[in-house]
């Protein structure tokens, strides 16, 4: 289910003093099975962009095509939103039911599944995020921060989306919580789901994603594989973005006369390249 965006433009509050052009002529395609990271400065339009991908926002101009069809022409918006699952930033703020199980079954029930099927789906999703049976009957408001976040992610997973979009899934969590949620996302991707992840952390993006899209002032500034994007040191720092730690170290070493390839951006690759360099010296 490829998603194609054509010349997408979006303006908040048009015709008022608060007019903001959040997106400005974005065109790109996201293919099946990809793991795409979206990075960019605060206010660069990341959150606005992803809400277009399941028709929560109607473009000011341009098109969003899912499976070749313009989603804003289609009447089946609810059905689409289940196929393209969107987890908002701080999704724990949308929990509302009395129990974890009920909250996670909210999505599947809206899909028109029977009570029983919905519960099945919810249990499956909770298992995926590592919340076992003993959490089913608890109030979602009693969970820890990381657990709440995982519960909210399960709420979207339970609809079995073909594309999963997450807005800053690790924001505001402690290191353990971060790792847990990122491992879950990685596992979901490895089972065949297309994943689009908005993130502030270059290291998370470098570790998980295959492709990186950099947004700047509502435009696509860079789009390519991790190696391609994280090789563009000047361009990234001009936009006020940092590099992943390993790429940063690689860059500093190169400035001191090491001749490491620009395509290195992970700790593993860096340590391997360095060992070889040092051996041959």
């Amino acid at each position, binding site marked *: 289910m490829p998603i194609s965006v054509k010349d997408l433009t979006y303006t908040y*509050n048009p015709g008022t*003093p608060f007019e903001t052009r959040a997106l400005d002529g974005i065109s790109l395609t996201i293919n099946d099975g990809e793991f795409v990271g979206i990075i960019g400065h605060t206010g660069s339009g990341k959150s606005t962009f992803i*809400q277009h991908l*399941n028709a*929560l926002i109607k473009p000011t101009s341009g098109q969003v095509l899912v499976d070749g069809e313009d989603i804003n022409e289609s009447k089946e918006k*609810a059905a689409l*939103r*289940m196929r393209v*699952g*969107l*987890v*908002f930033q701080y*999704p724990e*703020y*949308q*929990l*509302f039911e009395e129990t974890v199980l009920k909250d996670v079954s*909210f*999505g599947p029930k*809206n*899909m028109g599944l029977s009570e029983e099927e919905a519960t099945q789906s919810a249990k499956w999703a909770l298992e995926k995020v590592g919340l076992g049976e003993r959490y089913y009957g608890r109030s979602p*408001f009693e969970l820890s921060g990381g657990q709440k976040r995982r519960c909210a992610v399960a*709420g*979207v997973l339970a*609809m079995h989306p073909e594309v999963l979009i997450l807005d800053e899934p690790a924001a505001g969590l402690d290191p353990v919580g971060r790792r847990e949620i990122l491992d879950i996302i990685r596992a979901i991707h490895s089972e065949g789901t297309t994943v689009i992840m908005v993130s502030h952390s270059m290291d998370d993006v470098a570790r998980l994603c295959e492709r990186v899209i950099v947004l700047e002032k509502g435009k696509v500034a860079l789009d390519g594989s991790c190696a391609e994007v994280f090789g563009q040191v000047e361009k990234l720092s001009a936009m006020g973005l940092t590099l992943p730690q390993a790429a940063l170290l690689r860059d500093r070493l190169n400035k001191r006369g090491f001749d490491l390839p620009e395509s290195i951006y992970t700790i593993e690759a860096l340590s391997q390249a360095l060992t070889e360099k040092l051996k041959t010296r």
Partner: protein
Amino acid sequence: MLNNITLGQYFPVDSPVHRLDPRTKILLTVALMVAIFVCKGFAGFGAIFLFILLCVRLAKLKLRFVLRGIKPIAVIVLLTFVLNLFLQSGGRVLWHWWIITITVDGLRTAVFMAIRLLMLVMGTQLLTLTTSPIALTDGLESLFKPLSKIGFPAHELAMMMSIALRFIPTLIDETNKITQAQKARGADFESGNLIRRAKAMLPLLVPLFVSAFRRADELAMAMEARCYRGGSGRTKMKPLKYKKRDLCAVGAYLAVLGAVLVLNIFKIGVL
């Protein structure tokens, strides 16, 4: 849907009217209402309308913004017009059918009353369009301060009002976000009968209340941490001060009031 709520419809530009002391603007708005009620004829309304136009011009507003405030009370204006039209009698009969009679006096009163209401709305619109809600509360607090001697909680009310005003955009924002998030989970807020729709609001209202209470809690804590202890002895970062332009504004108003009174006394354009 929530974008249509223009509470605090403050239009943020820099203009001489915006820069007036909020107290001046509040008092002048009240005074303008008095003038509108004192006015007895169409010529006087003309003078007041010119004054409003002048303010709109100086405030860099468009007349259309001021007129927008009329929409919510259009029904009341219409009702007033119709009632006066049919119930007032006197003068030449213009139209008669069964028990309905429209007379010249009726028509005149109806138009007069409708214009009066429209003028009142335009006057108050002018205040809210050119004064930020925070400045408005500041002004009100300062005006009501003398009453605190007899136990009127001027500071507390002003503080509550500014907190409420401060959080309305936040809550609207949050409502939008939660609505979007639940829609992403397939929630349907639009279709179904009334009971179904009310039930569909639950996934929106619960998180909203939870977060409102959390915010209130955090705010109270933060205020206490910064030693907030109520109004007594509290000073202002930007104390209100009357300037020359406030005097000019009062002068302009007095000119209009004078014109209205003169027109009244000499019965120019008076009913």
